[in-house]
């Protein structure tokens, strides 16, 4: 998979947004020519779905045509939107074949204008909700699905920190409270015939054990590359500060992911909690230690200096030379 970020523009101002830091303040729509190059990248990567996001992707003035171009190449289309979109974009999505175009509408609560789009999208729309506080109230999602006849599924995401940013995010110390709340909500959702899907970064230990069955293995932390409007690739928005790759001819998503994997490998031993070290869930492969960007919050760095006085070294040298004379190794590990 790979996401195509077709604009940096958004009319919302979500405090938890982890995309803004990746754009460095740039205001830019992807051009049709660059979009075609991004579609070429998907083609040579063997990817059969164009995942369009932003910013608010429907604000790209070429959005309807971009949907058409993807469909003309035989791709399925998934649009990540806040649901507040221009009429032309809404019309295009409304008329698209429902078996090939899906719309993931991210909702924060009761936002004016969203209901209009949800009503018209109906079964094409899946609700998404980002958890950025442990005291989130998700029951309104059930009402929205019933009221507008939406796909009976909700995709929950964790608001992750961007590595170099100041976005609002769910700190791992709140995971257990959020997991407990989500587990209780899952029971009510299931009773209503509504399924839950978890995005990346959820860890099993944040949920009560009785919920592990429906949680499944989870998405772990397997970043999906984002193609930015300037045709650079980042591993995912939260990790964007760690490295970028140009979208070049001949390279596919597998190659790019391999480069990012190699770049991040050194940090992978760290998990989001101190207790990740030695955790049986992690050692069994049931858990990857959560979002890497969240785990990196725990990193401490220098610089610091440390001096050893001559007399302390001298004692060591005396010990070393005595040991050498006796044919024994010096130091503590004897």
């Amino acid at each position, binding site marked *: 998979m790979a996401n195509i970020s077709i604009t940096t523009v958004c009319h919302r101002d979500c405090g938890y947004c982890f995309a803004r830091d990746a754009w460095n303040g740039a205001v830019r729509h992807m051009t049709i020519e660059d979009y075609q190059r991004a579609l070429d990248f998907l083609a040579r990567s063997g990817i059969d779905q164009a995942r369009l996001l932003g910013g608010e992707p429907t604000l790209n003035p070429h959005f309807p045509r971009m949907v058409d171009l993807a469909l003309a190449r035989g791709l399925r289309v998934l649009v990540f939107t806040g649901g507040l979109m221009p009429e032309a974009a809404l019309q295009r999505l409304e008329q698209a074949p429902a078996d090939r175009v899906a719309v993931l509408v991210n909702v924060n609560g009761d936002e004016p204008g969203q209901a209009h789009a949800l009503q018209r999208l109906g079964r094409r729309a899946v609700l998404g909700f980002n958890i950025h506080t442990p005291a989130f109230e998700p029951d309104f999602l059930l009402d929205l699905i019933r009221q507008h006849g939406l796909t009976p599924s909700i995709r929950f995401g964790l608001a992750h920190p961007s590595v170099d940013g100041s976005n609002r995010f769910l700190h791992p110390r709140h995971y257990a409270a959020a997991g407990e709340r989500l587990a209780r909500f899952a029971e009510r959702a299931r009773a209503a015939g509504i399924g839950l899907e978890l995005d990346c970064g959820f860890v099993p230990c944040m949920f009560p054990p009785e919920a592990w069955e429906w949680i499944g293995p989870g998405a772990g932390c397997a970043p999906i590359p984002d193609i930015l409007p300037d045709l650079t690739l980042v591993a995912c928005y939260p990790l964007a500060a760690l490295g970028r790759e140009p979208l070049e001819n001949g390279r596919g998503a597998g190659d790019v992911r391999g480069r990012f994997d190699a770049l991040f490998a050194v940090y992978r031993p760290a998990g989001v909690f*101190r207790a990740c070290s030695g955790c049986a869930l992690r050692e069994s492969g049931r858990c990857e230690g959560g979002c890497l960007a969240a785990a990196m919050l725990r990193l401490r760095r*220098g610089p610091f*200096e*440390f*001096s*050893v*006085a001559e007399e302390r070294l001298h004692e060591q040298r005396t010990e070393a030379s005595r040991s050498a004379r006796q044919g024994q190794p010096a130091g*503590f590990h004897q």
Partner: protein
Amino acid sequence: MGSGIKYRCPPQVAWTVESDGILLLNAATASSRRLRYPEAAVWDWISRGESCDRIMRKTAAVAKMETETARRLVLEAVRSWVEAGFLVVENGDG
């Protein structure tokens, strides 16, 4: 301080405090090392700017060992961290 050796932690090195020690990460060499106690405590004290003498005394106290044994433990730990690139020698007289 007079003569001796000064060590520095390079910017590409990071660490996390874990429930069972400290995890050292070196982005330059793409390597990591898990430190158990008491070595983990030594790294923690070093990173907090504590003096060598004080660290040796504290190591002796928490690990319940002779001061001389603690001294050798600290110096051996520092030597191995230099070898692995987690510390670099800033200056030295041998």
